[in-house]
């Protein structure tokens, strides 16, 4: 976590290395328990559902729902000062409604956002004025409503 990389994530940190590597490939991957198949977020040594300790980072569809969000109008940290106003919030995943990803909402107007609206993942670089590198990250954008009563499918992406 050298100062020059702040506030980028430490993409070498064991607990989340696979998450950032997945984003670099354009995949959203979440640890899934080998014992009970539950998705676990945040990553932890043991499964909260069954206590299992074998996880595989599993690609998910990238479809989800906007759980909640905030429009940040004040630059609390210097690297964000030129980004305000920006929209950050939580997205739940279609495959795992209990998983909430912290993310940014992009390619949309904040005024058009609604709680629980469908969203889909897009991969965008985290870029800050004073950082030398950038990191690809899963962000979200509004998606069309899935077909009612049916399994949501690839058409929505």
């Amino acid at each position, binding site marked *: 976590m050298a100062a020059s990389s702040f506030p*980028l994530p*430490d993409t070498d*940190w064991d607990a989340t290395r696979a998450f950032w590597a997945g984003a670099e490939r354009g995949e959203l991957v979440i640890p899934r328990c080998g014992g009970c198949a539950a998705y676990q*977020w945040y990553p932890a040594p043991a499964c909260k559902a069954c206590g299992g300790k074998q996880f595989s980072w599993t690609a998910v569809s990238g479809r989800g729902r906007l759980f909640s969000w905030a429009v940040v*109008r*004040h630059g*609390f*940290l210097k690297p964000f000062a030129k980004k305000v106003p920006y929209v950050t919030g*939580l997205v739940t995943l279609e495959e795992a409604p209990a998983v909430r990803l912290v993310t940014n909402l992009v390619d949309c107007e904040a005024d058009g956002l609604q709680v629980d609206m469908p969203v889909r993942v897009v991969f965008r670089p985290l870029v800050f004025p004073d950082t030398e590198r950038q990191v690809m990250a899963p962000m979200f954008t509004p998606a069309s409503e899935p077909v009612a009563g049916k399994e949501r499918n690839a058409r929505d992406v």
Partner: protein
Amino acid sequence: MGAYESDWGHASRFEPVGGEIAVVGIGEAEHSKASGRTTHEIAAQAIERAIADAGLEPTDIDGLMYSGGMSEQFDEEAFHAHFGTRHSMFVSKQGGGMAWAGSAPYIAARAIRAGKARHVLNVFSVAWATQRSSMLGGPGAFHAAEPFKFNLELPFGWFPQPVYFATITRRHMHEFGTTPEQLGAIAVACRRHANLTPSAIMRSKTLTLEDYLSRPMLVDPLRVEDCCLISDGGAAYVMSSLERARDLAQPPIVVAGVGEGYSDSGTHWSQQRAFTSTPQVFSAPPAFAMAGLEPKDVDVLTLYDPFTIVALMQIEDMGFCKKGEAGAFVEGRTLHHDGGVLPYNTHGGLLSHAYVLGIAHVVEVVRQLRGQAAAQVPGARVGVYGGYTGHMATTLILRRL
């Protein structure tokens, strides 16, 4: 005693200690914006006042509690250095401010019962207004240092606390129909009480609901007026057995009940299963049971209120109204000291009194029950402090003899 566990949190199993000890002395340091003072200087002033208020001497204080997780707190060494004493003391780092301002009396009661101490002092001070050069040097520092937050939240700008609680607020608005006017009612009640309270930092700045609604968003849906101050200040209180308390200078304010609850997701608010609740769900019921009281018996309530939404959620979670109904409950004059159904943060709270992390809330409850408060609730007999520290909530129920 109700459920101790759920799918998102649990309560600590406390032994009954109701009626064993009393708060016998209170003291506040000057609360201010950046003052150049150190936390030790602030703590020493509060402690001197608390000991004098109780009619005790520094050598009588044989128990000391402070927040071990915070830097530069006034510890045993600082106590002896300041007062020139050298007696042995019972020491607990599970005290001080935040949630621990509410649970310290439980630890003190156990220590006093076991004969480890006679007079236990709990102290907390902070100099964040002086120390803050950036949000990383103030209340955000703890969160920025936590690796999951650093790696999975901060890069997206989901930081610091105003962003977390704006997100919680929006979800609460969606689930329960909570409105800006209802959040504003909390801010206005706090400011009105601060305007009456000499020690309040915002004592000379008024705030009407119209003022509140006209203010710009800081982190939409929160305005600056929804957020706590950043202050220098502190307070302390002394606890003794009820038997000894009867011989001291002030009317004893009895510790009737204490509760403590935890969220299993810790300070990872993003992952808390019950996103729009606080661990008061677990803390308050056993505290009321220990006290043999109910929420309807409460004459004055103080809540750890870093943001209006945290007060709103605790009011629901402690049982003062049904879940989701606090918005409608707090509208109008409900929270006001003069005629409100539930007089609340009668000193102004973290929003308008001082951001000294809850220790002054306990002092205010004691003052109310003694009949010595600035915004006095007539005839107040039962007072409650709801403490909150993200992953943890505590409930302290005090009553007049």
